[in-house]
């Protein structure tokens, strides 16, 4: 079991990445490419939906750390949603909730992006 897939879609002004499968040192480069692509296209409101993410190791967590600064400097953000307890536990062990907003539901995350846009007008 080492399959990993990313699919892209849009929800309003938010670019959603749906992660599926196993995110480890072998598959983490795929996530790096995905972030690079979005950033290059200046799509900086990024929501990572983890509903089908079965596994994550520090290699995957490191990818988020690699891009968060650039995305936030550019006025965007990386938020996450729909994590299973197993996956959330690993994010939590590394203190990710201190740095990232993690939502139980995608809609709450999208609303948060919208709220931020409204308040910056």
């Amino acid at each position: 079991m080492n399959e990993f897939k990313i699919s892209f879609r849009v929800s309003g002004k938010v670019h959603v990445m749906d992660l599926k499968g196993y995110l480890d040192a072998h598959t983490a480069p795929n996530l790096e490419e995905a972030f690079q692509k979005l950033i290059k296209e200046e799509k900086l409101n990024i929501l990572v939906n983890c509903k089908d993410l079965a596994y994550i190791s520090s290699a995957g967590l490191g990818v988020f750390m690699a891009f968060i600064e650039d995305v936030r400097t550019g006025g965007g953000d990386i938020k996450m949603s729909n994590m299973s307890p197993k996956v959330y536990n690993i994010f939590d062990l590394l203190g990710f909730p201190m740095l990232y907003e993690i939502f139980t539901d995608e809609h709450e995350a999208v609303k948060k992006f919208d709220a931020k846009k409204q308040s910056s007008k």
Partner: protein
Amino acid sequence: MTSGGNQKTTRLNLRIPSQTEKLNMAREFVADAAKVFGFKEDDVNNIALAVDEACTNIIKHAYSYAADKQIDIVVSMKKPEFEILIEDHGKHFNPNQIPVPNMKEYMSHYKRGGLGMYLMKKLMDKVEYTIHPKKNVVRLIKYLH
């Protein structure tokens, strides 16, 4: 009341090539053993992840991503102790020289790297590193409660 008895140690071995695409084999191998040993799902997941982290570090640091080397994983089971030894024959790596990060400070500086070792310490009951002349050994222990 049960006595210690003459419980034998059960040992299982796996050798994988030093390739990240083989990490799932290492995870499944230890997860299966951990389930048979009696660990609940959370602990099984934590053990598999700790082994993934250890093997990833070997691939990156001991072998500098050379794909033609070997990683040996030996699981020894004697209740309540579940021990995993992970051996490589690569560059010596002294993890005691790497400080355990303060995660709050780490996060505030957007750092990356060093997360694997930190996770291993959080997920297992014991993590020990031994450098031998020709091999490095990571010893991970989890106790069944």
